[in-house]
């Protein structure tokens, strides 16, 4: 097997991992701040892909879809928090889990009714088709683009969390919401926004993934499992953990597809089991 093929597959894994990173980050942010295990995250990833496709076909431009769909679905996520999740705060953690689990079925069925069961191709924008020669081999431009977009979004998220007043509120509020309340912060509003951002990240993952596969109502269910595996490997609530673990899982899946295709679906679980054996809290998880 020649080195170039391995390199291309490695690169493919990074692109796949980038989408996992952005999706798992949304899951991790919502869990870290609100303590809600969002089982609808995969469905919202899928809705994001449909929304991107819909906006792109309305405006005739992929770029509008990429920009508008995550915001649209993020606002939809805020409505979910406001109407459905909020009444469950202060109750058992199972309640929001069951709610979002049920919600994911409702969303998938709703999409089936509106868009049908069949997969819809999501055309790659013309500017991003083809391959680029990076000196060591030819790589699909769209996958390069996905990696760049995710890197930029990660940088923006990091800046927002570490360098802004709102980021300070989020970091402190995820540790101790009560102290934020007595320091004048309307923590419900912060939770609303954080839920919206988390869902928006899932939708962004969906739009980015669209051109790499067909868009269909079931596309979120595997992503949900992958995103959970990523957050467990990285350490629940750790953002850096989600990034490292997302790339790790992406590359592992991609390399397995090359060397042992029959192991394709099991590799991430094996990786998770291995990490949990050595570090039960995940790679970057903090002690409870």
């Amino acid at each position, binding site marked *: 097997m020649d080195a170039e093929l391995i390199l291309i597959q490695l690169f493919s894994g990074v692109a796949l991992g980038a989408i996992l990173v952005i999706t798992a980050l949304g899951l991790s942010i919502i869990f870290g701040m609100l303590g809600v295990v969002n089982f609808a995250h995969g469905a919202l990833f899928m809705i994001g892909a449909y929304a991107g496709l819909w906006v792109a076909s309305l405006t005739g431009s992929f770029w509008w879809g990429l920009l508008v769909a995550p915001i649209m679905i993020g606002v939809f996520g805020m409505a979910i928090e406001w109407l459905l999740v909020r009444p469950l705060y202060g109750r058992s953690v199972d309640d929001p889990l069951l709610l979002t689990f049920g919600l994911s079925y409702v969303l998938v069925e709703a999409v089936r009714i509106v868009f049908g069961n069949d997969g819809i191709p999501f055309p790659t924008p013309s500017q991003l088709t083809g391959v680029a020669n990076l000196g060591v081999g030819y790589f699909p431009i769209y996958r390069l683009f996905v990696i760049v977009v995710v890197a930029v979004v990660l940088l923006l998220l990091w800046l927002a969390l570490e360098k802004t007043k709102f980021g*300070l509120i989020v970091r402190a509020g995820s540790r101790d919401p009560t*102290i934020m309340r007595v320091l004048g*912060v309307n923590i419900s509003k912060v939770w609303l926004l954080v839920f919206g951002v988390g869902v928006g990240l899932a939708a962004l993952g969906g739009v980015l993934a669209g051109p790499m596969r067909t868009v269909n109502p079931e596309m979120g269910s595997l992503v949900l499992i992958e995103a959970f595996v990523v957050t467990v490997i990285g350490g629940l609530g750790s953002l850096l953990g989600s990034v490292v673990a997302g790339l790790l899982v992406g590359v592992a899946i991609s390399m397995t597809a090359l060397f042992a295709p029959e192991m394709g679906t099991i590799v991430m679980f094996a990786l998770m089991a291995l990490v949990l054996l050595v570090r039960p809290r995940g790679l970057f998880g903090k002690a409870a």
Partner: protein
Amino acid sequence: MAMLEVQDLHAWYGASHILHGVSITVRQGEVVALVGRNGAGKTTTIRSVMGLMPRISGGIRFDGADLTALKAHDRYRLGLAYVPEERRIVPGLTVRENLQLGLVASAAKINEREAIDEIAESFPRLKERLDQEGATMSGGEQQMLAIARAMIGRPKMILLDEPSEGIMPVLVEEMGVLFRRLRDQGVTLLLVEQNVEWALRLADRAVIVDQGEVVHESSSAALLADKAIQERYCAV
């Protein structure tokens, strides 16, 4: 002028009825000590004032505004700050960031850098540790940080829950000096304390609660002299 007026306050935790009609008035610029045995209802009283109790009845007015319908964060924005017994220094944040938390929602327009410099002057122990993680400091230093964080937004009144608890005597003395200075600046203080003598020496007036009711109210000098009442309601 009354800064805080608590009228016939009842409070519940689930089914248990903790406060049975507490009424307390704190005038502007006054330091009031709220004393009494463990479990008498002192903490519940100030938690109710701050809006942290699940169920209360009665009236709470602060600086002319009715607080009863307001959430805790709105009460802070009116100029009412609270230092909880557990201090609640946020882990993972530096001393500076913990101080910034006191400013993120303050109603007063305050220059962050100036405010932190000012606090650093009042708290030399914090000045050296601004970039250290707050939660790694000693208990006394964390208490100082909690008080500094409550002061930095320039509130009109601060509710303090057992600030001297578990702290070395030299720091307790420092804290006393600080509270006197705050009073001189016109800040109103309601001080819940187990360290009765210390609290009475600081305060203008004293209120004793026992079993969820106010059982005594006088100048702190009078209570300091009345060992019988102290013995009856405050002895451990």
